[in-house]
């Protein structure tokens, strides 16, 4: 009686398709979420990279703000780049509204503009048991301060770039733009344990 996991991806805007491809490879059912109705039908949610300021508008337009807050209280959410900004408890540069699903302060565009985008191998923290990961950082944010329950998973130059708090995950880089399915597999593992 094992049912296939249904993973939602917030498809308002941004890098949706590369996640869909990764998740299909890993054998789960993928649903693109645009409405509260589809959100209610999934077991976990990915908030992809995109532009966080545009996300804020589109979430309001599509009536998803309260449904997302409610969803995050019960089910796993993984925010990537703009998604991590959206999940943060506090956003800097500039300050903006966020869902406060993850106890962290996140600074937008913290490495600079597109010319400062970069690719680098990442350093695993003790809690990271998956294979090595390469990080693609695009106008990426930085995780500045985190709460006591946050567990670091991967770092770049000693700074946390992926972390877990309970069933939630944030990453400032883009695992969907690399070959390895390691981070997606890790997130599905988190979903399985809830």
């Amino acid at each position, binding site marked *: 009686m094992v049912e296939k996991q249904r993973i939602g991806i917030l*498809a*308002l*805007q*941004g*890098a*949706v*398709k*590369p996640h869909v491809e990764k998740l299909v490879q890993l054998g789960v059912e993928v649903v693109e979420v*645009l409405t509260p109705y589809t959100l209610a039908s999934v077991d976990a949610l990915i908030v992809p*990279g*995109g*532009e966080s*300021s*545009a996300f*804020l*508008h*589109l979430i309001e*337009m*599509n009536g998803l703000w309260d449904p997302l807050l409610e969803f995050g209280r019960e089910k796993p959410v993984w925010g990537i*780049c*703009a998604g991590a900004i959206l999940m943060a408890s506090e956003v800097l*540069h*500039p300050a903006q509204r966020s869902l406060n699903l993850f106890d962290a302060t996140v600074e*937008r*565009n913290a490495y*600079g*503009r*597109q*010319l400062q*985008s*970069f*690719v680098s191998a990442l350093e695993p923290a003790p809690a990271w048991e998956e294979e090595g990961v390469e990080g*693609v950082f*695009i*106008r990426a944010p930085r995780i500045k301060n985190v709460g006591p329950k946050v567990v670091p998973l991967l770092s770049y130059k000693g700074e946390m770039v992926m972390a877990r708090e309970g069933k939630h995950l944030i990453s400032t880089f*883009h695992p969907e*733009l690399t070959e390895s399915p390691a981070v997606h597999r890790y997130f599905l593992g988190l979903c399985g344990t809830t």
Partner: protein
Amino acid sequence: MSEMRLKTGLAEMLKGGVIMDVVNAEQAKIAEQAGAVAVMALERVPADIRKQGGVARMSDPQMILEIMDAVSIPVMAKARIGHFVEAQILEALGVDYVDESEVLTPADEEHHIDKFKFKVPFVCGARNLGEALRRIAEGAAMIRTKGEAGSGNIVEAVRHLRAMHSQMRRLTLLGDEELVHEAKETGAPLELIRWVAKHGKLPVPNFAAGGVSTPADAALVRQLGAEAVFVGSGIFKSEDPAPRARAIVEATTNYQDPAVLAKCSRGLGEPMKGLDIHQLAPEERLQERGW
């Protein structure tokens, strides 16, 4: 290779969004507040370039920097076709994307910019698959339809999207020796022709531009396969730009939902006036620029 991944990667982040032409910091803020994923900084929107005539060049760096300071979203700017020094200047300013654009007066009537020499990514216009692949062969990390900029008329963007998608579908049916012939006919490298034949899509993101004026226009190009939408004159040449900008953003995301489109299309005031393409002389058609 990692360079290309960073260049197309930023375009991935813009997918499903609206990129708006703006001529000053105030318009840039309106665009950002309406939910634009990026802005294109330029001195005159295409409709004014068309009206005023003369040589259209890269915008004043001072204006571009003011726009970069005003918003937190990516800022693009246009260089003339073949004008690699304008592109060098835009890269030095730190813009996030360069549009090698037919909207400006071409600086070279044979060559486009060698875009592999730059760290800043480039978007280029195309009317068909051959043109798109020639630009990708030069290093473009994003393709957009040319449409007919500043016309307020969607017909040319539709023509270009339809052409590109039907040509891609056709390639997937051809045999190996026919692909060699296609490469010869289109002037596109055989390896890119083979890539498209295998995958049925472009190797870089494929956006629409040229003539988008209403939420319905934006949803139309999305349903025809465009992954994001550029809006040039359509917003700030309309009667009431801010609500129109918001509605076009809403329509671009919910392009498959006619109920949402019906709701967001209401009460937006007059769109820009627009031109009948058939009234334009061939030399007035910006889309003919590029080689």
